[in-house]
Every structure is written in C-alpha cells, then in structure tokens.
C-alpha cells in the first residue's frame, strides 16, 4: 500500500510523523502549485467549490507519483465535502488510474485499522501522540509569529524563521528534538529587532476551515496582513479540530462550542461546515478584535448562510469577506486588505480621540 497524501496547511508534518512511526509508505507529493490547481480545475465539475478542485489536483499528482491508496473522509454532516469521495473516485477512475479510495464508510475504526496495516492500538496511540506534539509545537510557534510579524523591522524575517522552524520540527525524530527546535526558534523569533510604535491592530481570520488553514489556497493572507502591521488572531486550526481531551469537549471549552453559544440569538442551528462558528466569532470577539477577515471558497453553502446573517449583527467589528476560487489574484486581495486595514486604523484613531 502506498498512501497518497493531499495537502492542507501543516497536515503534512502530522501525517509524516505518524507514517514514520507506523511504517506506512507515504508518497510525498510536491506542495500545491499552479499545476495542481490547473489539473484539478480541468477535470472538476464547473460549479463545485474550490477545495474539491485542489484536492482533485493533489490526488492526480499523488497517483502520478505511484500512490495506490487515497483517503477522503465522507458523510461529514450537511456540507458538500461529505459527497466529495463519490465524485472524486468516479473522475479518477475515468482518467484511468488504479487505486483504492478509503473512507470511513465502515466506521472510523475500520478505516484506521486498514490504513495502519493492523498495527496495535498502543502503537497507534503513541504515534498519534507524537504527531500531535509536533502539531501543538507548530501552532505555538505560529502564534508567536503572528505577533512578531506585525512589529518586526525587516518584514519577512519572521516568516523565514517560521519556515525553517517547520522544517526542523518536521525532521525531529523524538520529543527531545521537538522541544529543542521549539526553544531554538522561539528564541530566534524573540531576538528579531522590532519597532516600538503603538500597539498593532488585531484582526481575526475566520471562515471555512480549508481556506483558512491552507496558505496556498488563501494566498498567504496571514503573511500579507503581517506585512501591513496587523496582528493575526485565528482560532480555526487543525490542533483545535483534533483536540482529544474529553474534558474540553464535555465542558464546552472549545472555541467552536463557545462561538456556537454566542451565535445562538442570530443563528440557532448547525448549518454545516463552519458557518455557525463564523457567525459566533463576530459576537464572541466583539471587544478584543479590531476587525475580521472572513474567508470562503466560492459557493460554500454554510458560509453563504453566515454571510447573509452577519450584517444583521449590530455588535462586533467590521468584516471583510474574501471569496476564493481559481481565478482569485493576489494583487486584488492585497489592495482590499490595505483598504480594510486603513479603515480600521482610522476607526481606532477616532475611538482614541473620543476617549481623550
């Protein structure tokens, strides 16, 4: 079995760590590129959402490199993603590839067993724990990077160090090496020369999971915001998604549960995907965020619902909606971000003036 991996943010690091520990043959595809997207767009249905097209491109590239097993979770609530695997399989078979599509059709336990070649439960848990440690470290590093990016003197240094850090953590063979890499790169980040101007604006990034997580898809929106001197806040992450602590679940301490509760006066039902959370975050962070950038792929059902409901919420910071599809250009996004950040600055200055 050669498992083909599709990219989504930092999930490569996690998958690689698990695969190494359990001896799974993982085909490392090159990270998403223009070619990946072109391939995906060429063979996808016209009006399907953007993540589908990218996934298809990724899968074709993995199959070209000799993968024979693909993973695509199905039946995940009322979002199109639960239907992806049926169409993806048909398209890829028509293109003449021979492979097996693994879904959790027969239960998630069966799926894990199949993918891990029947490794013992202890081994699986150890591997998963190790991979999650890496993920947690990455996300800690990421949070520091958000702060530093906004105030660093030489724009781009923090991103460079962060990328080195990802590589170092990816290559770390054990827990000690992870800890070492974390300390080293945190120190490097802290030592960067910074500017001492008034506190930077805090802008939350929220929206559809895949677009928010994946820098290739959202055209590095976090880096662009950092360049404009904005501190990014983001609660949607893979780490939040796979938090396995039962207490956190039971007490509703996850960001998701908190935002759902906050959204209830405006949207009282789960609408699939992350629509409910997008609405909730606007209310939940009315005070501590200066603005929200709401990302969605074109035609995303839950986010269209969220976008319809958001304007009726009187409290909460201003929202900039950015919709992604294969034609989205970076220049257009940068212009809109600049205008948005200018507006936030002006709003903040006025507030300060009023207070004085």
């Amino acid at each position, binding site marked *: 079995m050669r498992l083909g991996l599709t990219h989504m943010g930092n999930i490569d690091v996690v998958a690689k760590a698990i695969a190494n520990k359990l001896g799974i043959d993982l085909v490392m595809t090159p990270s998403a590129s223009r070619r990946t997207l072109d391939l995906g767009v060429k063979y996808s249905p016209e009006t399907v959402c953007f993540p589908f097209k990218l996934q298809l491109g990724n899968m074709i590239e993995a199959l070209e490199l000799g993968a024979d097993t693909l993973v695509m979770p199905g039946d995940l609530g009322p979002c199109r993603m639960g239907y992806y695997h*049926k169409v993806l399989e*048909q398209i890829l078979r028509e293109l003449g590839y021979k492979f097996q599509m693994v879904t959790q059709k027969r239960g998630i336990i069966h799926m894990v067993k199949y993918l891990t070649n029947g490794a013992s439960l202890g081994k699986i848990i150890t591997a998963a724990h190790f991979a999650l440690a890496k993920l947690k470290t990455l996300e800690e590093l990421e949070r520091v990077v958000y702060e530093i990016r906004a105030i660093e003197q030489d724009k781009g240094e923090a991103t460079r160090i962060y990328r080195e850090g990802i590589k170092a953590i990816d290559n770390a063979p054990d827990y000690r090496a992870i800890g070492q890499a974390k300390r080293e790169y945190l120190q490097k980040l802290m030592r960067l020369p910074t500017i001492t101007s008034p506190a930077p604006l805090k802008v939350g990034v929220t929206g559809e999971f895949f677009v928010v997580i994946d820098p290739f898809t959202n055209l590095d929106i976090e880096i662009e915001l950092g360049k404009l001197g904005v501190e990014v806040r983001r609660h949607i992450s893979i780490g939040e998604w796979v938090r396995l602590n039962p207490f956190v679940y039971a007490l509703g301490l996850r960001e998701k549960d908190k935002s759902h509760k906050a959204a209830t006066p405006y949207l009282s039902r789960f609408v699939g995907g992350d*629509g409910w959370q997008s609405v909730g975050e606007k209310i939940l962070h009315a005070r501590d965020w200066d603005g929200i950038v709401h990302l969605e792929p074109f*035609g*995303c*059902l839950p986010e269209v619902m969220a976008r319809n409901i958001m304007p009726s919420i009187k409290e909460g910071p201003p929202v900039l909606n950015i919709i992604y599809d294969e034609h989205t250009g970076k220049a257009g996004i940068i212009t809109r971000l600049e205008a948005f950040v200018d507006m936030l600055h002006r709003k903040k200055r006025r507030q300060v003036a009023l207070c004085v």
Partner: protein
Amino acid sequence: MIKIGIPRALLYYQYYPMWQTFFEELGAEVVVSPPTTQTVLSEGSSRVVAETCLPTKVFLGHVLSLVKKCDYIFIPAIRSVKSKTYNCSKFLGLPDMTKAVIPESPPILDIDIDVNKGKHELYQAIYKLGRRFTWNPFRVRRASIAAWQANLNYQQLLCNHSLTPPQAIERILDTPGVEPKTHSEYPIPMQATIAIIGHPYLLYDEHINYRLIHRLKQAQNKVLTPEMLTTEELESATARLVGRAKWTCEEEVVGAGGHYLRSGADGVIGITAFGCGPDSLMMDIVQRQAQTMTTPFMSLTLDEHTAEAGIVTRLEAFLDMIYRKKRKRICV
C-alpha cells in the same frame, strides 16, 4: 382567527397539503403567497448576498409578499427526513436567515425536523409547534395524524395519477386548473418522452423555469418527472449510481436521473440552480452516467439572469436532436 403564511417556494411543493391540514385542524387560517413574478424574484434577490441560490431568493421574495398579510409565517428547518441523510445548509438555517435579512417579517413559526434524533424528539418538536395554537396535546396529536394522512394521500395522487405537484394541490383544494389538459384535448401521437429531473421547487415554479413543462407538452412530448417514480425505483437507481444517499433530495436528482437514463425516456433534462451545492456534484454524477449511456442528456442551469430566449433555443435544439435520433432509428 390566526393567519399562517406559507411561502409558495422551496418545500411548498412537497409538503403543502400536510402543512395546510395541520394548521387548519388547529383552527388557523392558511394564506399562501401568490405565484412567483419578476417583482417577487427581484425583491428577494435584493435582500441577500449574490451567491445565494435562486430558489432561496425566490423564497425570500415570497416571504416579503406575505408581510402584513398574516400573523405568523411558517418556515420549518428540515434537517433530515430519512435516517443518516442531510439537507442543504440553506434549509437548515432558513428561519434564522429569514429573520436576519427580513427584519420586518411577521413572527416566524419554526420547527426542527430531524429524524436522526429519534421519534421522541420529532414528536416533541411537533407538539411544541402545536402548543402555539392550543393547550390541548390531544388536539395537536389529532391534527398531526390528519396532516400525515393528507401527506400520504398527496403522495398517492402524485405517484398513481402521474400528476405534477401543482396539479395535485389544485385537485386537493378543488380549484380549477389553469393549464389545459393536453392529453385528452389533443389526441395527436406523442413525439417523444422527455424526463425532467431536479428539485420540485425548480421544476414546478413556472416563472423561474419559463414554463418548461408546458413548453414540452405543447411540442407534443410526454413529460416524466421524479414524482412519478415509486420510492423503490428511486432508491434502487440511487444505490446503483452512488450507493447510500447522503442528501435528503438526492433521489429526485440522482435516483430519477439514473432511472430515466436507463429506461423510459428518449431524453433527460437536468435542471439546477446556479450555486446549488448538492446539485453541483449530483448533477455531475448523472452527467457522467449519461456519457456512458445512449440516452441524450441536457443540463440547464437557472439563475436570475437566465433569459427566456436562451432556454427556448436550447430546448428546441435538444428536441430536434432527439426527434432526429428517433427518426433514424425508425428508418434503420
């Protein structure tokens, strides 16, 4: 008497007789919005973001036309009507979205229908809705049983008498139909049998599909729709194409498409609304199936900019192709 408004859009075509019976049994008066017009559509579109699908815009237009004409508006949030299937996000959040974009709308009566949660939750939800009208739980029970019976009768009419939903509703309400009875009045032999697949709210809203069914009948074609198939036929065709259904509305697209492509129709027309999430994938599956079969298939995408001339031209070309194919077959 309390007046309950029901918008003539979305699930109206599937459940109206049931809803009407339920509310009338509870002593309320039911007001249905008039058929869709251009004003309804453009007013609905003006309230929401552009990517919202066409049927939702039409629905909101109907809600707007009911403002000040009723005391309550009934907007159910139907999550699933079959175990382990889901409905589109638009249906789930419909009451919340209506409240957000039409603040002047009358109070909304909502009910969460989710059979995945079990019978108890479902009965509780119905009871909660009924409690708005009466304190007596037995009266609610009687009303819901009557409503269910009305729904079964309605399904029977659709399936056994090959009626379209608007015709069946007319027959139930006993109002004379506007559409001429093509079958009896013109004894000319039918040219071809055309199946139309898609959601009822696209197929039977004559404004948004430019009277497609009427046009097909006028050209002496027999028209087949998803409602004319039995549940078993739909289910087996769905299972053949995609396995277990994921969407509540999957059978009327994939099931009907799969069935008609294989048997019974000379050509199949798939109707979707632009930006419809489930359809973007489901119609693709039907289209792929059509490529491997010999039955011609045409996909029509509707949005508020769809022009009548464009639809007519494509329809004529499609029909010409089918007639030619039939003629050729006869010659051979």
